């Protein structure tokens, strides 16, 4: 079998994984929990590669961020892109019991561990929350007391991925601080932010640069570009701003 992904000396190639659970997060976003017998474990922020094969041998591959905490079975959360080749299948067709090939975990840069300290700033646009959620889940599972704040930009309240779990993670004195902004529509009585993340909003929400925060930013290209520049303008050293961008992939 061609290829291998490496994690701390462990090596894995493509392996068959089974979908053990499919959770609809929003009307357009679904989480697939996978059972992969040879999964070597992953770090928060890494991704995996998916390979789908048609009966005639045609294949398509894509990369998806892992949403589960390290130590949990690998899970990916996928947004349906209407003109995509793979995401509509993963979100709309695949069901528990189905099998697909996976490879990973991949990537060693966009990764957070409690030992890296903080304060931690997570900024997500839409499904850019996915790798940040793995970090937030790890922080909770590890009982980390690193102060952590999540700024999540979604189109509407219905489009907020992991909405209930985020509320649960925010609970308690050392909970994750969660700040939502809803850019297109807001429920009645909404008193939170209701606009795209601009410089002023970022200044209000982001930890001050003097606290030496570590920032992770994930979302569409324009979003990431704007947030990363904004954080640098607020005094964040560029090397403390790690980014992951979603291009026009399907």
């Amino acid at each position, binding site marked *: 079998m061609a290829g291998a992904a490496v994690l701390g000396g462990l090596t894995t190639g493509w392996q068959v994984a089974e979908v053990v659970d499919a959770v609809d997060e929003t009307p357009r976003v679904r989480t697939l929990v996978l059972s992969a017998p040879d999964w070597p474990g992953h770090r928060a922020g890494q991704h995996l590669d998916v390979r789908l094969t048609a009966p005639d*041998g045609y294949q398509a591959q894509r990369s998806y961020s892992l949403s589960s905490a390290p130590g949990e079975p690998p899970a990916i959360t996928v947004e349906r892109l209407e003109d995509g080749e793979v995401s509509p299948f993963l979100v709309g067709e695949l069901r528990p019991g189905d099998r697909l090939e996976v490879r990973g975990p991949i990537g060693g840069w966009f990764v957070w561990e409690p030992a890296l300290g903080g304060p931690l700033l997570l900024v997500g646009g839409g499904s850019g929350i996915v790798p940040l959620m793995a970090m937030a889940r790890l922080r909770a599972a590890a009982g980390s007391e690193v102060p952590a704040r999540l700024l999540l930009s979604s189109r509407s309240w219905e489009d907020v991925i992991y909405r209930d779990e985020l509320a649960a993670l925010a609970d308690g004195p050392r909970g994750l601080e969660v700040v939502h902004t809803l850019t297109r529509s807001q429920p009645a009585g909404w008193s939170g932010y209701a606009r795209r993340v601009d410089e002023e909003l970022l200044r209000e929400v982001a930890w001050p640069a003097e606290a030496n925060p570590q920032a992770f930013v994930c979302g569409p290209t324009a979003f990431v570009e704007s947030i990363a520049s904004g954080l640098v303008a607020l005094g964040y050293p*560029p090397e403390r701003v790690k*980014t992951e961008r979603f*291009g026009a992939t399907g």
Partner: protein
Amino acid sequence: MSFFTRGFEGRRRDDAPEGRLPPGQYLTGGFPVLSAGPTPHTRLEEWTFAVEGGAEPVRWSWNEFRALPSETVTVDIHCVTRWSKLDTTWEGVSMDTLLAEVDHDASYVLAFCDGGYTTNLPLEDVTDAKAWIAHTYDGEPLDPEHGGPARLLVPHLYFWKSAKWVRGLRLLDDDEPGFWESNGYHLRGDPWREQRYWGD
């Protein structure tokens, strides 16, 4: 019977000309952006391109660099995240032109960039009309998001090797992994051999 995923048909590559799409890639019409951190904005007055590690260090200012002969090339590019884009048109200075100014016997280069990014390449992958320092894309000055004012262009390797915001080369006797190459990605990155990750 070999493995397949129930219900998956996929979209056929009718739109990809024969022999142009490496294994595991799909075509895109857009120009997706990937990078590990904020986009640097270096003023042209402060920009230089340096070649270190030869008999003498060599350095060009932006104006000196732009006075060198440029070539226009139309090439296919392939990102390790699986998009490929055909027939992209760039203008840039051939690495042959730059390295002709340097006395050296190196076997590898490490490109270094604003923002701290590095990538490693065997010398033979950047000589003989295979690599350029590109300053123009599609007839326009290269946008900062896409690596402007200048990026490395090595189209026959995965596109992370075409380092954005490039500021120079370090000539080396031995291969030394760069940024992504230290983070799980392949040392060479030939898309036709699907050299995506360590061990491929």
